[in-house]
């Protein structure tokens, strides 16, 4: 069964892993731009600091959220996941139907490099480079932290969710270190749509349970909701393309 307390939570792992992969690919673009335009040391300092802050956030908020009573937690967590999921799906549909440009890592890289070079040579410690790198990684990672904390807290599986996000982050870091450039060939929009479907499914299921819905067939219904949501997204992409 999907996402029960006893079974391994495959859907949670996939959702967090893909979300972290998408966000970290975006963060990598900024880190690489900082490294090339200013200094690799400052880029890595900013990255390390941001990852440490994100880890502290998970360590503080994760255990704290599990003390919140289940019913209000389901409503709030479900609503947040639903809002996030719908936002991700909206972007994915607009990109897939050609109404919004596909995420262009090359363009973001060029713009960031130009901005950093225009700021001139640093005097002493390169704060601009550290801050740019920190902001890039922290802001992209914050969304992943919210997913780790909310998805993980519901099933008390913060550790599995954290491990999944960390694996994606390490994977992007290794690939980034090997190629030392931004990653353009990642099917970002497809991954974004998949994460969106999973977030909306969890959001509908949990917020529904929180406001008193009794789903027929229990947790199996989550799978049915995911299939229906995916079908709905496919229909919306076809309609938006016309």
């Amino acid at each position, binding site marked *: 069964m999907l996402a029960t307390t006893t079974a391994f939570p495959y859907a949670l792992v996939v959702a967090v892993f893909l979300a972290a992969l998408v966000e970290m690919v975006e963060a990598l673009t900024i880190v690489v731009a900082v490294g090339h335009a200013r200094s690799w040391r400052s880029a890595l300092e900013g990255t390390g600091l941001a990852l440490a802050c994100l880890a502290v956030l998970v360590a503080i908020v994760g255990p704290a959220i599990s003390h919140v009573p289940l019913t209000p937690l389901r*409503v709030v967590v*479900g*609503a*947040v996941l*639903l*809002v996030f999921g*719908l*936002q991700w*799906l*909206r972007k994915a*549909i*607009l990109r897939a139907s050609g*109404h*919004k440009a596909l995420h262009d890592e090359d363009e973001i890289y060029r713009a960031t490099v130009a901005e950093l070079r225009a700021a001139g040579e640093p005097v002493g410690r390169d704060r601009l480079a550290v801050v740019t790198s920190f902001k890039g990684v922290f802001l992209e990672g*914050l*969304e992943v932290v919210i997913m780790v904390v909310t998805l993980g807290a519901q099933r008390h599986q913060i550790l599995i969710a954290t491990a999944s996000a960390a694996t994606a982050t390490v994977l992007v870091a290794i690939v980034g270190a090997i190629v030392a450039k931004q990653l353009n060939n990642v099917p970002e929009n497809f991954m974004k749509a998949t994460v969106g479907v999973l977030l*909306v499914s969890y*959001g*509908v299921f949990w*917020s*529904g349970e929180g*406001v*008193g*819905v*009794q*789903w*027929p067939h229990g947790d199996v*219904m989550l799978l049915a*909701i995911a299939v*229906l*949501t995916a079908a*709905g*997204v496919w229909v*919306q992409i076809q309609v*938006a393309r016309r």
Partner: protein
Amino acid sequence: MRVFRVVATAVGGTGRFLWDFLVGDTPEIFVAVCVTLAGVALISRHHHSSLGGWVLLVAAFLILSASVTKAIRTSTRK
């Protein structure tokens, strides 16, 4: 007084950040989700408890559809 101003600025800044982060340029999604959940809570309390689930799922689809349509119209006008 200075401490109060610093705290007020920090709280305001955090609030703005959270609003931008959670709501951003799609306030219609945030508002519609809140309204839908309130409606589903009423349905589940007074009528059939599984009917609310289907209402929620259909509403999620309609919210997404409306937000996508709004974005397409805005981009077409530009």
